[in-house]
């Protein structure tokens, strides 16, 4: 099968985020960027399917500024075969992203599209579901296991009550959760090798897709801070505190 993976460049998840004092957004200047962690799980899943002989080609797509080609290089170093950067400096909402990915799917005709379940910047958890909806394909979100069974895939999902298992005919869209796999680290030789793999940079306008935003962000604020806490002097104080708080709860 042919797999298309979507990967997003985001503020690195270890960066301590700063909200701009004027409420216009978050500070991105000089901030470390990297591939969204969930997208890494999606790339890793694709590479493992290829290593197991289930996939013959992995195309990875990113949508963003030209620096997002770094994210594609990471994916290529992990084992993807080919990269496409849909280049834009615009902040595109998830509907626009899903539409662009639909256009990429129409060109590439993959059997399976893998995405991270959410990106750790917007925390939306939309794109896979929206793409599946636009395509009319089955979807399996929050995947923690993917097995190929004939011409279908068996996907385990992490849900509110535990896990559920589903059989999906192909083509299908699957979004990766954290326990799907452990993404591999890429050694320098693999990164050097990746630079030789095909990477197409194409302006967003080439796709002729409506990406105009529907929403406006009025304000971006820091969350309220909590008051200073206190250190409990000893074990007896811990017991007394838990007892008091629990009793207050029972009285409610």
């Amino acid at each position, binding site marked *: 099968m042919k797999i298309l993976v979507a990967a997003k460049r985001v503020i690195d*998840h270890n960066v301590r*985020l700063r*909200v701009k004092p004027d409420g216009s957004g978050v500070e991105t200047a000089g901030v470390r960027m990297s591939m969204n962690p969930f997208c890494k799980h999606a790339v890793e899943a694709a590479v493992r399917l290829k290593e197991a002989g289930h996939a013959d080609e992995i195309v990875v797509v990113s949508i963003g500024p030209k620096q997002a080609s770094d994210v594609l290089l990471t994916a290529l170093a992990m084992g993807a075969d080919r990269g496409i950067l849909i280049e834009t400096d615009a902040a595109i*909402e998830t*509907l626009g992203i899903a539409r662009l990915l639909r256009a990429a799917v129409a060109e590439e005709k993959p059997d399976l599209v893998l995405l991270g379940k*959410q990106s*750790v910047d*917007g*925390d*939306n*958890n*939309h*794109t896979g*579901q*929206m*793409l*599946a*909806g636009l395509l009319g394909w*089955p*979807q399996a*979100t*929050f995947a*923690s296991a993917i097995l190929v069974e004939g011409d279908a895939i*068996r996907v385990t999902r*992490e849900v*509110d*009550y*535990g*896990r*559920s*298992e*589903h*059989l*999906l*005919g192909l083509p*299908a869209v699957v979004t990766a959760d954290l*326990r799907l796999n452990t993404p591999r680290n890429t050694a320098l030789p693999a990164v050097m090798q990746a630079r030789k793999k095909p990477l197409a940079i194409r302006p967003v306008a080439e796709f002729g897709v409506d990406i105009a935003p*529907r*929403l406006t*962000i*009025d*304000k*971006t*604020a820091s*969350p309220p801070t*909590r*008051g200073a*806490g*206190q*250190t409990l002097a000893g*074990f007896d*104080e*811990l*017991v007394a*505190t*838990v*007892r008091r708080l629990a009793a*207050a*709860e029972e009285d*409610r």
Partner: protein
Amino acid sequence: MRILVLADHDLGRLSPATARAIAAAVRLGGQVHVLVAGDGVSGIAREAGSLVGVGRVLVADDPALGDAPAEALTELLETLADDYSHIVGISAAVGRDVMPRLAARLDIQPVTDITEILGPDRFVRPVYAGNALQTVVSPQPRQVLTLRASAFAPAGKSEPAEIESVSAPAAEGLARFIAAHRTVSDAPDLATARVVVAGGVALGSRENFAMIEQLAAMLGGAVGATRAAVDAGYAPNDWQVGQTGKVVAPDLYIGIGISGALQHQAGMSGAKTIVAVNIDPEAPLMKLADYAYKGDLFEAMPALIAALKA
């Protein structure tokens, strides 16, 4: 304006989150209808109809909807959408799965995980693991939303609302449900619990994690876990609290052996009172806590359980 809320339910019961979503939906300012979709859900429909603010309950009782398949639920909601200005889900497994798919089908940009409703088209939602709060304005003819239940108080009981049957369109059969692997637990619903006792990877084993469950049971609370504890196999995935797991806002949160990564804090910093027990006083959760106890959890936990029993 008319608002349709997709009810969440499991094992024949309405989820506690649904009563919260209904109370929040009332604030959007319109008549609230609730859709109960599933297999054998007439009892759940009555339960939903008895909540304050519900004007009507729509019931789609169909074996094909039994395991909340995103594809069939989306088709059902598409057939109902014309009658509503707002279609509202809960920011939990089903709502997160279905609402974005529906929005795309309706050519709408969804707004999800809303923690505050400022008006019919004006919402607050957390981004960057809760490190920033965005005020979003959505001037679209129709809204597709999900609400974070723990951010809203539940609706109370009232006179039963009218119940109307709706039929689900024939399913396309795109995906087939095979099996459910349920975590068996008597603990209350984690997402809406008033007390949560959570454990980290420092517990060291599945067996030791039972101390967390024991303390939670004694306090009538739900059990939570960090991502690392779940990854290590000490706790099931549905106990994970954090940016990508469940988001809780209990009155009392007790974190045992939890360092408090930003991603975990995103799931619990809305707790009213936080108690932390950790050997490391510099752990971020110890700094965040209202009450921090520095000590070895393997001494403190058995002693705390024994003391509370006495």
